[in-house]
């Protein structure tokens, strides 16, 4: 019985070393279309332990090199074909993605979002470049109401995505009440504050109880909260409030006063608050739970870590870094590129011209660093 000669024999990467499937293609010693005999060297492969010449095991024309010199390949990968005729056409390299349309350059999009966009025939050029595009963003672009706002995971049927609980009914809490009322995104359902009587009102919002009331509020389908604890005296109080809210199953959305200006390139995470007439400049990043108080200026390229508190009127030049849990006082000015460490306290009206270490207290009205006395 004769077996008809195959039109082409595939050449695969061999396992050159036991336990090491990877190799790098050093060079092609046989060119595309070249006729080789059995034993002729096709290419050179290198592993971490040795360099090997790969010899042809059949006679034929070298067609369809797959891996270029410099590329990493694995044992079993296809290198090329040895064909009986120089005109034999190698099968096309399979496309890695089945989609036929080309995506805009730089677009980062999740697979479910891409599937939805294709399904609805959305023009991809309407999607933003830079942020990671998710299903909810595609729905916005399509003009459909988002099924859920934000994190879909904690959501249960009956959760109200616009109801907001205020934790802490003091001065900062009142500021937040009026901020929320100006916006259209949320409405306040109550205040939790262990220091107030249930039934009392804070600017027209009823007090529902202390910490013990959190579970009941959550059970009613309220999933969002805003932290009214300023924590000026002790930042730990503010952090503890976030912890208590989180442990009770609440999420804290970012809240921004309608008069504040936050550039589109800024990343605002959960838990942060940007108050009236504040400015947050291009490419700045704010950490979880931070407060950018009234009239604060955060210039471009600043980085605030978690739980930072910038008091009213503080002025940060470009590229300033503020470490976690640091308090910057009212009217403080911080020079370009200065880095303030964690858990520092910068007093009102201080002038900060150089880096401030972790835990440092900078006296109010002083210049940092203190000028040398001669």
């Amino acid at each position, binding site marked *: 019985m004769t077996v008809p000669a195959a039109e082409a024999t595939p050449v695969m990467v061999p396992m050159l070393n*036991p*336990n*090491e499937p*990877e190799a790098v293609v050093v060079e092609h010693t046989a060119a595309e279309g070249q006729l080789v005999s059995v034993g002729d060297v096709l290419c050179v492969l290198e592993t*971490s332990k040795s360099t090997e010449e790969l010899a042809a095991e059949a006679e034929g024309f070298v067609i369809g090199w797959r891996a270029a010199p410099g590329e990493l390949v694995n044992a079993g990968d296809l290198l090329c074909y040895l064909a009986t005729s120089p005109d034999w056409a190698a099968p096309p390299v399979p496309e890695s993605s089945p989609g036929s349309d080309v995506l805009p350059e730089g677009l*980062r999009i*999740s*697979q*479910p*979002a891409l599937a939805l966009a294709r399904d609805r025939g959305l023009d991809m050029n309407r999607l933003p470049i*830079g*942020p*990671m595009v*998710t*299903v909810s963003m595609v729905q916005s672009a399509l003009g459909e109401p988002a099924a859920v706002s*934000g*994190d*879909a*995971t904690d959501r249960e049927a009956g959760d109200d995505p616009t109801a907001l609980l205020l934790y802490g009914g003091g001065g900062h809490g009142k500021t937040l009440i009026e901020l929320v009322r100006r916006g259209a995104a949320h409405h306040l359902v109550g205040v939790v504050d262990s220091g107030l009587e249930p039934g009392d009102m804070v600017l027209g919002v009823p007090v529902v109880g202390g910490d013990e009331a959190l579970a009941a509020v959550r059970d009613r389908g309220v999933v969002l909260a805003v932290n009214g604890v300023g924590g000026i005296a002790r930042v730990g109080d503010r952090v503890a409030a*976030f*912890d*208590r809210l*989180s*442990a*009770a*199953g609440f999420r804290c959305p970012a809240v921004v006063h309608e008069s504040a200006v936050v550039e589109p390139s800024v*990343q605002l*995470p*959960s*838990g942060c608050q940007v108050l009236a007439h504040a400015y947050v400049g291009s490419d700045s990043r704010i950490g*979880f739970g931070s407060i950018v108080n009234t009239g604060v200026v955060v210039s471009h390229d600043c*980085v605030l870590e*978690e739980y930072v508190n910038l008091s009213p009127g503080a002025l940060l030049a470009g590229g300033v870094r503020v470490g*976690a849990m640091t308090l910057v006082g009212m009217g403080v000015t911080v020079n370009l590129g200065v880095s303030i460490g964690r858990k520092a306290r910068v007093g009102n009206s201080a002038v900060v011209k150089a880096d401030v270490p972790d835990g440092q207290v900078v006296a109010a009205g002083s210049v940092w660093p203190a000028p040398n006395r001669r």
Partner: protein
Amino acid sequence: MTKVLDSLNSGLRQCLAADERVVVMGEDILDPYGGAFKVTKGLSTEFPGRVLTTPVSEAGIVGVATGMALRGFRPVVEIMFGDFTTLVADQLVNHASKFAAMYGHDVKVPLVVRTPMGGRRGYGPTHSQTLEKLFLGIPGLRVVAPAALGDPGALLASAVLDDDGPVLFVENKVLYNCELHPSGPGAPDADEDLECTIRAATAGHPPSYRLTVRHGEEAALTMAAYGYMAELARQAVLRLAYELEIFAELVVPTGLSPHDAIPVADSARRTRKLLVVEEGTRSLGWGAEVVARAVEDLGGALSARRVAADDIVLPAAAPAEAAVLPDVDRIMKAAQELHGR
């Protein structure tokens, strides 16, 4: 792109050049062979007399190195396979790590023992383990593990030159060939998908890293992993985001013991879901400590899971071994289950 292996080699070179008290010792580490995994390649040629080849006796090598450290050298010992650290356990645990306390603090043992752990090479049950869990929590012994982040060579150099106590430096065979990812804001050709924040070294704790999906949604899940597992966890973070819109953030410590609980706590206090990935066996390992500390520190509701090697003897056959060790799919599955609760 620099590989972890190149960075470590460079770190050793830096140590030998910086301090004449540094000596590198181990089996088969002389040129031209340059060590079983080539981490010491080129060093014996460049620093003659400072790179010593030893007999095949791990306990002997570490014992001698401990004595040398007591007498003012700064030895760096290579143990060829991490599985052999069992042979040096008495020297490390009952001698090197205790002398400073037993004999008064004028006595110092600035010894570094470095060794590759890990499987996926089909080397079998006694050459593929991840055994550093046996040395965690030993008072007086620091355990440090590089990842493909930051500067592994600098991490090693710091252990050799700056630390006056014994350090077990845990490398990984597969990690050696991984390319370093750029870290830190503004790094040249920074990863377009993952943002890396560095938490700088503090007294007693080497640096740690936090990776988040760039411009993605708020993280809903915290992952913790070190060494080669950080590479798999990193791939899982990307796939979870792109395939399932589950956004996780990955904390990668380089210090294993003592355990710095702050980076994990900072993340898990927001997400309240903690997934720990390790290549060691699951029971009573690193992950157990990470979860225990997180529960102690954070209180309240915290869901946690560990992805680790199954508690069985590692098979030699590659497919059988692969079924036992963590992989990206298994990490993703665990993350989905944790997320969905």
